Structures are given as C-alpha cells and as structure tokens.
C-alpha cells in the first residue's frame, strides 16, 4: 500500500523532509506498526521516532490512537505533541 506521510516540527527536522510517499508492507496494520516500520528505514527515522509513545498520529487529518488500523489512509501525519495557542 502506498501512502503519503507528512512530518511536522522536530519529527520533520530529524527525518529532514516535510513529506514523502512510501510503500508500506502488508505486515504493517496499525499506526504503531507504521512507527516501528519507519524506525527500520534509517538513522534519521530512528532519531525522530526514538520515543514513539510521545509521537502523535493523524489519519486523513484526524487525530488517531497508535492502535488505529491505517488501511485506506491517503495521508498520515506524524508529529510531536501540539504546542499552539
């Protein structure tokens, strides 16, 4: 499955790109699986996702828990806790 990933704040800085389209293996079912998969893709991903428990996910621009299935997602946002306002 092909999906667009978008990164923000220090996740974006550490992965060193704002977005990319990647091919996800079928063994990746949930958001948590996706984070673990990304960590295998290189040092920069490992640095960004070192503490996956603090990472927030959004599927198609809506917040989701890490155990949410990602099947059918067009766009997955990966970012740190929000600090707006």
């Amino acid at each position, binding site marked *: 499955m092909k999906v667009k990933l978008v990164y923000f704040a220090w996740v*974006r800085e550490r992965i060193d790109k704002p977005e990319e389209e990647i091919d996800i293996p079928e063994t990746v079912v949930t958001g948590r699986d996706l984070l673990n998969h990304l960590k295998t893709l290189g040092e920069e991903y490992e640095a960004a996702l070192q503490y996956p428990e603090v990472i927030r996910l959004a599927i198609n621009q809506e917040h989701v828990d890490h155990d949410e299935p990602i099947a059918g997602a067009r766009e997955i946002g990966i970012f*740190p806790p929000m*600090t707006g306002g």
Partner: protein
Amino acid sequence: MVALKPFIRVQREDFDLQTEIAMLTEGRQDIGAVVTFTGLCRDEGGSLNALELEHYPGMAEAEMARIAELAIARFSLLGLSAVHRYGKIAPGENIVLVIAAASHRQAAFDGANFVMDFLKTAAPFWKKEHLANGSTGSWVAAKDADDAARDKWLKP
C-alpha cells in the same frame, strides 16, 4: 434550526479585535456578552527573540472548527471566532484570538476558555524558539498543565 458556524482562520498576518468582534455582533441585538482571548508572544525575561509557529495546513483549520463546534453546542454560543497565526512572531505580537458571544456572561467566558484549552492540546501547531543570543532554541515542550486544563472540561 441551522447550527451556527464558527469563523475559523489560520493566517500569517495580524488581526484586529474590533473588526473581528464586529463580524459576530454587527446588526444583532440578542448578544449580551462577548469574551475575547488574545494569546501573545512573551520575551521570557529578554531571552527570546521570536517564536516560529508551524502548523499542519488543512488539519489545523479542521481541528479548530471541530473544537469550536463543541463549544457552540455545549455553551449555547451565539457566535464564535478562532484565528491562529503562523510564521515568525516577535515578543509583544499576537499569536491567537478566540471570541465567544452569548446571551449571558458565564457562557461567553466558558466558551472562550474551553476553546483555548482544547486548541492548546489538540490543534496541530508547534512553536520553535529563536533566542536573543542568536541561536535557534528548542521546540517548546507540551505542558502537563495544559492537559490538566483541558481535562477539567471532561469531568462528569
């Protein structure tokens, strides 16, 4: 009855309170209370040169609208606006504006307060510090106190 739609904007430029309030109140005679919240950039005792605000375009507006609609329903608001800036913002400049209009004062206070508490913890914005010594500081860390402020609205 058509549900009230909030005014939501994410923009680079500053906002003017009097203009924003007029958008909610002009021509109306049923509004008895308007509460505005303006969040500004502080210089942190002189150590901060600017904040850089990053956001998730599209999702930022969608989350702000979702929060605003919760507030309208919960507090029977007669008007609600939320405007959030992005880009580099200097100390003393505005960052965010929330306006809640209602018949009575407590609903307007609660509406604006509720929107701010959820916006802080759920709207996809991030702040990076540019320090007065010329270096780029770290990304601002999320505060437990902000989660606690949000959670007070979730009690039964």
